[in-house]
């Protein structure tokens, strides 16, 4: 992780166009800047070469199984929440070569991947995403072993966080204690404010690196009213959450619910498509592929994202341990919300809502947990604010 | 002969909980037997008129196959009980039993015991309870054998 944030100090005001200077300053320092941009019918993460790449004036409408890109009436730069991408695509790449080997007589030589890894700057990291990155830090760098690929990318990472000023339709960071306010883990944190003709960002410094970057952008000390205005925008988000998850005794609840009939019910709907694991910012499972070329003299080992929803995931000795769809959905949810706590000291869920939005059949884990708590089936639930799927 | 068997039977865990009267009834049907290595205690389809408490040695319970000789499915050691087909009609052995090594046992006469059990149903119940437990243990062990857990999984 980058150096811990300093004590709350002065906050600064940057005109909205200062983002251009910020992006160019980062690029001059050798960072490849990744951030939100419109693509593939959504707001995705990709390289930003200038402010023009940002999704200015765009927003998203999200519900269970629904994502729609919409134009805004204003020119907000960060007036949206989360898309299908999470930052793990850069820190924990979906496809990565681990090493190459070449035959050498009867033997072979395997060499570790060397060479420079491009350093990255993330622009637009939300509070829940900072928590997600911290969770993956715990999993991949703070155990007995450290993932060198993740570690290198993480050490070099520059984070410009952004406070959410609106909630998404499936968000529940409030329930998970992961937002909406960014509180740690950033070099710079920005809050976008639009008041009448004025359009600016309030910037908070988190590290020396962040301070140094700020020095390359025109900025001035923010007034108390401006700071209060920005804080107010973020605070109001707390009451707009699209979902709520009751996390009281959640681990114990799931541990004693392995035989709950709700699992059978959700298995009827779940397609095992693995979308949730792909969009989830904390899912880390991977598989390994050993490849060889046609001559058989060169071999490579590649690592790829994997999902516990695949039938082969738990294959051993002629069969899969988790052969039924039900057992795989149960594994994913129980891991995310319960066993993760015993493994890594915190919940694996940050309340980003992506799994709800991107599930083709709109399975909503907040609803599933509620059903398990209440001991009943979907019929006995009070419906939350979502449209019925036809 | 019968006098010396009483203390042996009384001490055996299989019968030690019987009341003295019931134990006497059982002892009345008991005799000492010995088998050389390779000798059969009984063969499939023979009339089943005894059960054995093995005192020393080892007995192999076998099934004959048409083309692969005899297959041993279980061995019974010293201290263990062999045979319950005497209890239930048609009173016929379903396996072969052969001494793998020189074996000494106490043979309990099945016809003798069946008659006594008909007269004294309490004795019958006591013996059935004990044999039911043996059958249950054998059934569980056999089921595990059936699973062939060490076999090639694919």
């Amino acid at each position, binding site marked *: 992780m980058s150096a811990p944030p300093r004590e709350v100090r002065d906050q600064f005001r940057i005109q909205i166009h200062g983002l251009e200077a910020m992006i160019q300053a980062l690029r001059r320092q050798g960072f490849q800047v990744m951030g939100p941009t419109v693509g593939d019918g959504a707001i995705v993460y990709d390289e930003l070469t200038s402010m023009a790449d940002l999704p200015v004036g765009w927003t998203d409408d999200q519900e269970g199984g629904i994502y729609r890109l919409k134009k805004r009436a204003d020119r907000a730069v960060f007036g949206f929440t989360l898309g299908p991408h999470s930052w793990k695509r850069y820190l924990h790449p979906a496809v990565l070569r681990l090493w190459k080997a070449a035959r050498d007589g009867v033997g072979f030589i395997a060499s570790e991947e060397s060479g420079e890894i491009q350093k990255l700057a993330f622009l637009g990291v939300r509070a829940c995403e900072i928590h997600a990155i911290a969770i993956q830090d715990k999993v991949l760098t703070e155990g007995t072993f450290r993932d060198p690929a993740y570690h290198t990318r993480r050490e070099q990472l520059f984070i410009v966080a952004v406070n959410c000023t609106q909630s998404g339709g499936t968000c529940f960071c409030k329930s998970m204690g992961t937002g909406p306010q960014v509180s740690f883990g950033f070099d710079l944190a920005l809050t976008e404010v639009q008041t009448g003709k004025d359009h600016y960002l309030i910037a908070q410094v988190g590290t020396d690196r962040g301070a140094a970057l700020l020095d390359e952008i025109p900025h001035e000390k923010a007034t108390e009213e401006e700071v209060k205005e920005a804080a107010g925008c973020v605070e109001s988000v707390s009451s707009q959450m699209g979902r709520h998850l009751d996390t009281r005794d959640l681990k114990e609840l799931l541990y004693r619910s392995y035989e709950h009939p709700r699992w059978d019910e959700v298995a009827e709907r779940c397609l095992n498509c693995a979308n949730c694991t792909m969009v989830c910012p904390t899912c880390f499972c991977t598989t390994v592929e050993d490849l060889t070329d046609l001559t058989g003299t060169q071999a490579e080992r590649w690592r790829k994202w994997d999902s516990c929803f695949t039938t082969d995931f738990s294959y051993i000795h002629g069969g899969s341990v988790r052969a039924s769809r039900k057992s795989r959905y149960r594994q994913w949810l129980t891991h995310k919300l319960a066993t993760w706590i015993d493994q890594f000291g915190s919940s694996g869920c940050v309340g980003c809502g992506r799994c709800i939005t991107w599930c083709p059949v709109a399975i909503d884990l907040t609803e599933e947990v509620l059903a398990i708590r209440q001991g009943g089936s979907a019929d006995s639930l009070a419906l939350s604010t979502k449209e019925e799927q036809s | 002969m019968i006098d010396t068997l009483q203390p042996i039977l009384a001490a055996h865990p299989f019968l030690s909980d019987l009341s003295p009267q019931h134990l006497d009834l059982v002892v009345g049907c008991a005799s000492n037997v010995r088998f050389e290595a390779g000798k059969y205690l009984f063969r499939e389809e023979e009339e089943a008129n005894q059960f054995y408490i093995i005192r020393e040695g080892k007995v192999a319970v076998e099934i004959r196959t048409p083309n692969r000789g005899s297959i041993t499915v279980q061995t019974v050691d010293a201290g263990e009980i062999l045979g319950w087909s005497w209890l239930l009609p048609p009173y016929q052995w379903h396996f072969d039993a052969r001494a793998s090594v020189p074996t000494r046992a106490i043979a309990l006469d099945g016809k003798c015991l069946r008659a006594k059990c008909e007269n004294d149903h309490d004795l019958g119940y006591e013996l059935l309870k004990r044999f039911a437990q043996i059958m249950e243990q054998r059934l569980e062990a056999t089921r595990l054998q059936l699973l062939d857990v*060490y076999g090639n999984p694919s």
Partner: protein
Amino acid sequence: MATLLERHETMSVDRPDPMVPSPFRVQRVRQETHDTFTLELEPALGEDGFSFQAGQFNMLYVFGVGEVPISISGDPSKDRTLVHTTRAVGAVTKAMRRLKRGDILGVRGPFGSHWPVELAAGSDVVIVAGGIGLAPLRPAMYQLLSQRERYGKVVLLYGARTPEEILFPRELERWRAHFDLEVHVTVDRAMGSWRGNVGVVTTLIHKAPFEARNTAAMVCGPEIMMRFTVMELQKRGVKSGNIHVSMERNMKCAIGFCGHCQLGPVFVCKDGPVFCYDRIKDLLTKWEI
């Protein structure tokens, strides 16, 4: 020889990248039963040796074919030779069986937890192995025998499918010849010439000579066999806190990152493969965990 690995200090445990295999040379391939074989390996890089604890495993890589987790089956005190015994059942193990003396195999490890041989000092020890499960327990047996005086009664109960599939038969005979070691072998079924026990290995437990209240039990074999063995041990009065089993799950990385080997909250690769039965007993009775 050219430098084989570039060692970074990127690891918190000051080791090279744990996903890159080290080359080991095959000294010997020995066929044990019709489908089980043993590899004897030595480090190809000329390092001091390979040290491990009984119960641990390595990831073995056959060039261009793939990698599998295999328990180490050799003597922990002999660090110049690394021994693995496995069945040839899949593409990788079948390719491994075709290796010859002098061939190079990739090795990553050792990984995982180990049998509590040290902790068992002062107790009776009962080792119950089924089939190939004898292989991960053999290092524990070697370790026990090297310090025999620290233990009470030592009993080995071993079950195999048929007499032809008994693993390490000569070693079993040597152990049986020890006056202070009880070895009982049984098979699931046998043809005429077998004079030994026939029946599942659980049937050997009720009369095995150990003091249940002061016994450490180590069990390895197919999961069903281990479950029933633990039941019989508990019937004898062995406490679940004194029983250790060795679990197996799908593994891709062996270092707790790929997620495949999870069994409830534990990772078999790093919290196991050896587990105190107490810790996982609730998991073993649940279906599809």
